[in-house]
């Protein structure tokens, strides 16, 4: 499941991807622009920094910046750090597996087996998508609409 944490983390990464390379962004600015509580955002940015996706600098001219170009950052990789191994239900994971309270046989539970397939499909899609591609998704729609308007 995409949690609020995952959603806000992605938005923050997209925000950073939209700023000129090397320019530091304050967390206040990201919080304000995306309507996220600053306290929650700071915790998310801390996780992203621990994983090495962003760099942080304190003090004047400080802030956050992507550690790599957005073309090299995969959306699926960001979400794993924030939301764990992309499991739709807690037992649909191999290494961070959590058993359901009413579980009778995890190896044969059809719901779990189906959800494992689902999450592998999710990760296959999200691991192909870079942050840069994600960012241009909305703008491609604008281009399509513009083209439609021209051709109309």
């Amino acid at each position: 499941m995409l949690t609020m944490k995952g959603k806000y983390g992605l938005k923050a990464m997209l925000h950073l991807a939209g700023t000129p390379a090397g320019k530091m962004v304050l967390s206040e600015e990201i919080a304000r622009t995306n309507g996220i509580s600053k306290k929650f955002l700071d915790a998310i940015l801390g996780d992203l920094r621990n994983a090495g996706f962003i760099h942080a600098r304190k003090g004047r001219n400080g802030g956050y910046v992507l550690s790599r170009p957005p073309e090299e950052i995969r959306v699926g990789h960001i979400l794993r750090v924030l939301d764990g191994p992309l499991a739709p239900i807690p037992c649909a994971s191999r290494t961070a597996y959590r058993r359901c309270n009413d579980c009778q046989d995890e190896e044969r539970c059809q719901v779990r087996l189906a959800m494992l397939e689902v999450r592998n499909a999710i990760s296959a899609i999200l691991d192909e998508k870079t942050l840069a591609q994600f960012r241009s998704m909305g703008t491609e729609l604008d281009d399509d609409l513009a083209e439609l308007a021209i051709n109309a």
Partner: protein
Amino acid sequence: MSASRIIIIGGGASGVLLAAQLLRTSGDRLKIALIERRGGIGRGIAYNTEEPDHILNTRVGSMSAYADDPEHFWRWIQASEAAKPFCVADTFCFVPRKLYRRYLEELVEPWLKHGGDGRLEIIHGECVDVTETDGGVAATLASGESHMGHIAVLATGHHVPSFSSGNALLHAWVSPEEAGIQEEAAVLILGTGLSMIDCAIQLINSGHRGPITALSRRGLLPLPHKRSQPIRIDPADIPFGTDPAYLLHWFRETVRWATERGGDWRDVVDGIRPYTRQIWQSLSPGGKQRFLRHARTFWEIHRHRLPPESDLRVRLALQSGRLEILAGRFLGMEQQGAGPQEGGSLTVRFRRRGSRAVESRSVNHVIDCTGILRDPADHGDALITSLLARGIARRDPLGIGIEVDGRCAVIDRQGTSRRRIFAVGPVTRAQFWEVTSIPDIRNQCAALGAEFAAQR
């Protein structure tokens, strides 16, 4: 493009595996020329040993030459006369490396000129250059003769320093006799990994009685093999693209999780193994550098494990005081009097881990067993040196190999993939990281075979 003649440069394990893979899967029209500078094939640094106690570091069950036929080596062992003297109860056993060399030699017999269909030509000589022409490639030997083909594949293996008897620093791949080490001599080995263990075992077997000391930054020895049951891991479980420190934390958490369920760290390492290439490729350039600097040793002692027999030998040597392990930093050495071969000595300076005091010790020989990760710009053979100088190939930014793309095509100075020059095996480690063991190399050879087949 019709690739009916492929030139493979290097007849060590990588070159032989590739030749066999290509010949067995392609039609009758494909011919291969294998250029090897040593006397025979299969004699790269891993398998060019006569020492019976130099055994494979990988269990027999994983050493098949073919990715799609994992029992191939096991079947060969059961059928081969050469393997009779060795105890091979099941696929979890470790046989001498010279036996594996025999396997590599026999592997290509069906295609040799004598006794085979003649599609594989083994050319004895040192290849010093490869050039691309309009319709193909030309490989030039040191003798001046040249060989034409449609595609060239570099399988030049590990770039290790060449042995010269005048050098005070010996290297791991020379026998004690060749190096002129006296039985009583005090020996310092740099490194405490698998090469050091090979070297120490060979010294002890040759009747050496002098003190042997091994020095490395952390003084960590490879951990022993045990039967493992790899845990099942999906790509969705692995935190790709994160920093090595984060990955290491995840690895430890996963080991804890597996141990709670009655497993072992080996189950986790072996479960991750199919994804090591993807993990490596997902690291940032800085992350790769940090991995090499801080996490590589930790990874290698867990990943490249020691057969139980060798582990026992090392333990006995440590207990009896034949071998001493030091954790510390090697600072340098100075020669005292005559050269080591003439009975002179070397003063070695080092600093123990966690200490500031510089210590020195007098030894007769220093052997470099710091491993196979070397800069091709410094240690490359004549061919690699020439390709780098002409800009046909370029050194990767980490300085551990040459750059290739995901299809194993060599990348030139301009950053363009060469159409007709490819590479396999350890020389490609900057792109794939784990390409030093047979299971990884055979997968790479199978992928390259499919690539060539698609081009035809």
